[in-house]
């Protein structure tokens, strides 16, 4: 799962998640976002931006896991 986030999300957010076409996903950037918000973004994307919804490819548990890790600083 760590690899999935680093590699697939990394296309737009950078392998180090420091941002690219997509916003930075560093702990500083994510810490204050509610977990439900992060889960919703991962599942459904953000309309009007390039962020797609990943709901067909990730289970709710996986989404929750990713959102939690993002808030505390994603593991390498």
């Amino acid at each position, binding site marked *: 799962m760590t690899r999935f986030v*680093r*590699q*697939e999300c*990394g*296309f*737009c957010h*950078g*392998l*180090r998640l*420091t*941002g*690219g*076409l997509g916003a930075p996903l560093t702990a500083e950037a994510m810490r204050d976002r509610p977990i439900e918000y992060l889960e919703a973004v991962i599942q459904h*994307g953000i*309309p*009007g931006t*390039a962020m*797609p*919804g*990943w709901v067909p*490819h990730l289970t709710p548990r996986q989404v929750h896991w990713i959102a939690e890790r993002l808030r505390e600083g994603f593991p390498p």
Partner: protein
Amino acid sequence: MMKRLIVTTLFWCALPASAAEPDGMGPLRGTGDLGLAVERASGSVVLLDTTLRRAIGRIDGLGDLSHASAVFSRDARYAYVFGRDGGLTKLDLLTGRVVKRIVQSGNAIGGAISQDGRTIAVANYTPGGVRVFDSQTLELIADIPTDSKVVGIEDAPGNRFVFSLWDKGEIWIADLSENPRAPRITRYTDIGQQPYDALVSPDGRWYIAGLYGENGLAVLDLWAPEKGVRRVLPDYGRGQERLPVYKMPHLETWAVVGNLAFIPGVGQHEVVIVDLDRWTQVGAIAVAGQPVFVMAEPTGRRLWVNFAFPHYDTVQVIDVPGRQIVHTLKPGKAVLHMEFTPRGEQVWLSVRDADRVDIYDTATFRKLGELPAASPSGIFFSARAHRIGL
């Protein structure tokens, strides 16, 4: 006396060249069959020899190479590698060493080398803009702030760089022909929402930007830039349903065969065929997933297509005259990039999760070999040195 002076001068000029002769990489050789593969996770590149079909070296310490790309000096000896972290590294393919490395911004997306080979331009996200460097020294010679993420930077004839502004929906031309230190800027506004990548056609005439925020393409005729940007292919794009796109298609290597261009559908599982004389869609070929790269063999006979998640274990080959898929390969998870040898007898594929670069015969689709490489992404051969718009 005069003659002696010339001889002395020549001898003196020759010294630095002999001093820079390859060491550790064998006798004198050319660079036309060399290239590199980016190891995106480890910040390194593998140097490749396409005649031996071997890795001939590895260079470390290039920083964050997610979405890294490379261009080549006009003598095809040096590679310039653009990293995500704003790093710009000049590599010597002959000695296998870093000549110079700078970190020129906080976040970058790629670059280009000018027609005359004297300047390198880098497209930056943070701070948004373009910076231009002397290709010999990597000295900063021009800074073009744009207040927007810059995408789709391409070199164009006349020592121009053309690029698009993701946040503002603009195309800019920076003309370095008069004074590289003071580029003349032409701005085109309202070209469409969220241009995400662009290409210059192989003849150097068309700058074409893909739009993420709406349907259609923005096209600028570089032979008649005063006519402005026009919008074409109103039905090309993500369509009404706004399909999710798991990886942005890459346009830079659009396949142009005759008057037809074969381009990746956006979010759609198809390759779109465009008539470049009329700028109309004349067909589509259904494929296995969302295409990322649609690349034509140098002969133009076949197209090789790779795909976004979750179909990125697949590569499909399309016969151009027949407009149909003639072969499907499953090299492994995450085929990120493909590069043809200069005359197209081989194609080299990076298979990220298998930590391999695979080599295929383009005529028989037979695998010719594989090389170990850590999470390989972009593969770049030195023949790019002599092509416009890469």
